[in-house]
């Protein structure tokens, strides 16, 4: 036998002790990895939502509130539509404080024979758009042509396939990157394509409740305010004017507050949970080491008697625990991965919040950090217990309990 095999032998011959140590450190690594991945996914989901919405103020018809809320469409994945007069656009552009604006036109497809999927269809004005275009351009560098659509990542249609909306064939030219938000369930097309779809829907006798000329409507106007302007002031000023009485301006920030509130609630809960689990596990770990160190007091004294130096003893003990906590850490991270990856959809659904998992390198980093933390905590606990014992003269311990 070689000296380095001693720790292995101890682990193998004390399976109960070994299993308990592995389970404890697995617990540590699992809670840390799962907690940080979920927390990070939520934060990424939120910032992705902010980026994708990208506007400071959104103007929608007053009636939108009573029918389908804009935030339900944009944040919760509801489908719906509402329309207002496009004549408002030049007037809004003249408002003080408005730097940029772009209209969008909505249509909801149906789960019926006319359509292959029930989705929210959003027409964007490709000349002025500043919110969706940057996102689309990452998967599709050209302009969306006639009857071209770009689909969110949760829509089951591949590039090159066609989807049928109101008996109209649309060509999927791009699949968009996942945002972790309700936008992943939307279909995007040009303004012209959407107007053609509106016509088709009306041709199929769907009452879209459009008052006026369908060629002259929009659903929402996205505004970016000038640098230094308060979006709330711009929104308030629009809401106060008689000429805008049929529309309402909403600050996007205020749409987020609900989400931001529950996000910080969930984050705090996760944080507390992880801290509680850690505190518990660290205390258990220290108790376990104290107990096993007491039980092994004699063993240590005998090793010292046979010529093991304090440093060698600490090394032997460290290898034993490091090995245990490494196994525990790997087990914990693997278990966490088994929960996090297959059930990502379920987690997202039950949290009801934008949820965007980090990319593989970040995941690997988090896994490595959790593993390192488990090994570190295990090592510190063992070093502490060994140090406590090796301060006593082996002679004193050997005499005890003769």
């Amino acid at each position, binding site marked *: 036998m*070689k*000296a380095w095999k001693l720790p292995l032998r101890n682990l193998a011959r004390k399976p109960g002790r070994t299993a308990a140590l592995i389970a404890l450190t697995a617990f540590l690594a699992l809670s840390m990895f799962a907690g940080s991945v979920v927390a990070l996914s939520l934060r990424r989901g939120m910032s992705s939502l902010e980026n994708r919405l990208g506007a400071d103020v959104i103007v929608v018809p007053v009636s939108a509130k009573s029918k389908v809320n804009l935030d339900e469409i944009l944040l919760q994945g509801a489908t719906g539509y509402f329309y207002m007069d496009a004549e408002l656009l030049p007037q809004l552009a003249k408002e003080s404080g408005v730097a940029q604006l772009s209209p969008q036109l909505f249509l909801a497809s149906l789960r019926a024979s006319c359509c292959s999927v029930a989705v929210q269809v959003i027409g964007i004005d490709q000349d002025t758009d500043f919110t969706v275009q940057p996102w689309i351009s990452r998967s599709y560098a050209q302009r969306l042509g006639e009857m071209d659509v770009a689909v969110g990542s949760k829509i089951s249609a591949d590039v090159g396939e066609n989807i049928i909306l109101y008996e109209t064939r649309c060509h999927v030219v791009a699949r968009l990157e996942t945002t972790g938000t309700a936008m992943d369930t939307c279909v995007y097309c040009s303004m012209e394509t959407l107007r053609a779809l509106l016509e088709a829907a009306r041709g199929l006798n769907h009452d879209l409740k459009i008052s006026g000329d369908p060629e002259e409507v929009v659903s929402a106007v996205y505004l970016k305010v000038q640098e230094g302007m308060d979006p709330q002031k711009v929104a308030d000023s629009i809401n106060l004017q008689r000429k805008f009485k049929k529309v309402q301006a909403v600050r996007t920030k205020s749409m987020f507050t609900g989400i931001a509130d529950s996000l910080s609630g969930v984050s705090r809960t996760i944080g507390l949970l992880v801290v509680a689990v850690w505190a518990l596990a660290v205390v258990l770990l220290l108790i376990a080491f104290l107990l096993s160190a007491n039980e092994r007091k004699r*063993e240590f004294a005998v090793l010292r008697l046979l010529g093991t130096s*304090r440093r060698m003893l600490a090394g032997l003990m460290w290898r034993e625990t490091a090995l245990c906590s490494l196994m525990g850490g790997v087990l914990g991270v693997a278990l966490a991965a088994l929960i996090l990856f297959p059930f990502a959809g379920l987690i997202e659904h039950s949290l009801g919040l934008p949820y965007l998992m980090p990319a593989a390198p970040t995941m690997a980093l988090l896994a490595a950090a959790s593993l390192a933390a488990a090994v570190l905590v295990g090592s510190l606990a063992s070093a502490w217990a060994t140090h406590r014992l090796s301060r006593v*003269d082996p002679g004193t311990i050997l*005499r005890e309990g003769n």
Partner: protein
Amino acid sequence: MNLRAEGVSKSYFRKTGEANFFVAVQRTDLTLEGGQVTVLMGRSGSGKTTLLHMLAGLLQPSEGKVFLENTDLYALEDQALSRLRNEKISVIPQSRSAIETLSVRENILLPATLYGHISGETERQAQAWMDRLGILPLADSRPRELSGGELRRMAIARALVSRPAVILADEPTGDLDDENTILVLDVLRESARAGAAVLLVTHENDALKYADVACRMDQGILRIC
């Protein structure tokens, strides 16, 4: 080689009568000569084990020094002292001293294992000592399967494998029958004849026959007889 204690004493903090500390071993000089068996007898609690541990570098004396030839044991760093003990000083402790997770053979080879001194020769030595001490059939057993006397002989074999310069035996015949007692005493005397300095702490009066030097410990005071 000889092992020398110069003016060593050991006191413990303990309430005894009016004093606040208790002197387990009074200032003592003792030299264990290579090639000789020194027998140390004395009543229970007289300080024999305490002195032996101080000689072994396992217990820091309250005063005085211990020398192996010219090396002051307690002036050494822990690492140097540990290595020196591993290579030169074997202790047969009074109490159980087996590592439970190792087999009897592995326990006996453990001192050599620690510093990577294992060779075919050490393995043959271990085999020979187990055979001589009658525990060869138990070589692959675990310590908890052994009787007190068998464990004692295991500790003796473990002490002898490295051919140490000093052997400190604390009641090595404590739980042995007469036949094995004689065997162990014989073995220790042979080791002395081969050059080792042997200290034999015992209650066995027969042991005096094996003594080159005999001493008595009485309430912490050592007397050479």
